[in-house]
């Protein structure tokens, strides 16, 4: 199966040479575009066009196509956020404790001086 995958990978760079000069035919067709051709821009095309021009849609597609990766990313972000929150809480708690200790030691000093 691995060898098949290897050949398929190479096949991505292959293309079929058209039996006719397709470029000239397309260019000729475009030179003859008229109002009637606007029928080609039907509902199906307009739907596709709107979707591919929407950042929100493209982002949602990316998320839907890579659900596992986005779930892992979201989990990672939540974990980091909790870790930062936890660290802040620990340090602020330690700070308060140090403050209390300072206050306690200064009151002891005062008592000794008296």
């Amino acid at each position, binding site marked *: *199966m691995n060898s*098949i*995958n290897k*050949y*398929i990978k*190479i*096949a*991505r*760079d*292959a*293309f*079929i*040479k*058209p*039996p*006719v000069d*397709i*470029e000239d*035919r*397309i*260019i000729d*067709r*475009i030179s003859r*575009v008229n109002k009637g*051709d*606007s029928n*080609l*821009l039907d509902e*199906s*095309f307009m739907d*596709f*066009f709107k979707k*591919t*021009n*929407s*950042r929100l849609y*493209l982002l949602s597609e990316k998320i*839907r*196509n890579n659900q596992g990766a986005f779930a892992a990313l979201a989990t990672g972000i939540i974990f980091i956020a909790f870790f930062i929150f936890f660290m802040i809480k620990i340090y602020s708690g330690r700070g308060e404790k140090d403050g209390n200790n300072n206050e306690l030691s200064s009151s002891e000093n005062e008592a000794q001086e008296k």
Partner: protein
Amino acid sequence: MEKQINDRKPRKIDEKILIARSKKGDKAAFEELVRQFSKYVYTTAFFVLRDAHEAEDVSQEVFVKVYLSIKGFRGLSSFKTWIRKLTVNTCIDKLRLHSKTKGKKVSLDKITEEYEIVFNKFDQSLENHYFNKEMVKDVLKIMVNLDESYRVPLILRDLQDYSYREISELTGKPIGTVKTNIHRARKMIEKKLKK
């Protein structure tokens, strides 16, 4: 028979510049876009529809659609991605509406006799250069001859980078069926290559 497209080709103008010019109504710029992408569109259409005439019709239709709508193209995805999706959608519509090509098989020899397979880039340093090329041709020939239910998902997945979910939505089949058909298609190719 085979051609290697390499340095002899004139330097391509950046697609973004061509798109910007085409938006302003520069026909020459649009013609250059046609030159750069027509073979890609034709090949994609041919693999899905397996019919040279239909592939040509689709190619023309796709470029007319692009020509008429390029002013509104925001470029949020690359032009190649956009035109690829447009081509595949047009082909799927053709398959659904006309189902002309359904069940039609191209003989295994026809593809080498009548159609030239060209390699865009091929690593010259590969040891078994000739062997690899012939194998790729065989794989493509087998791929083109698979039934629609196997061929279309396999091409979309392996050659066009579609996700299983996108293929499922396009073909109207459950994701499980799509996965199974792609797996079976690969097995079929493997089996036929061994013969």
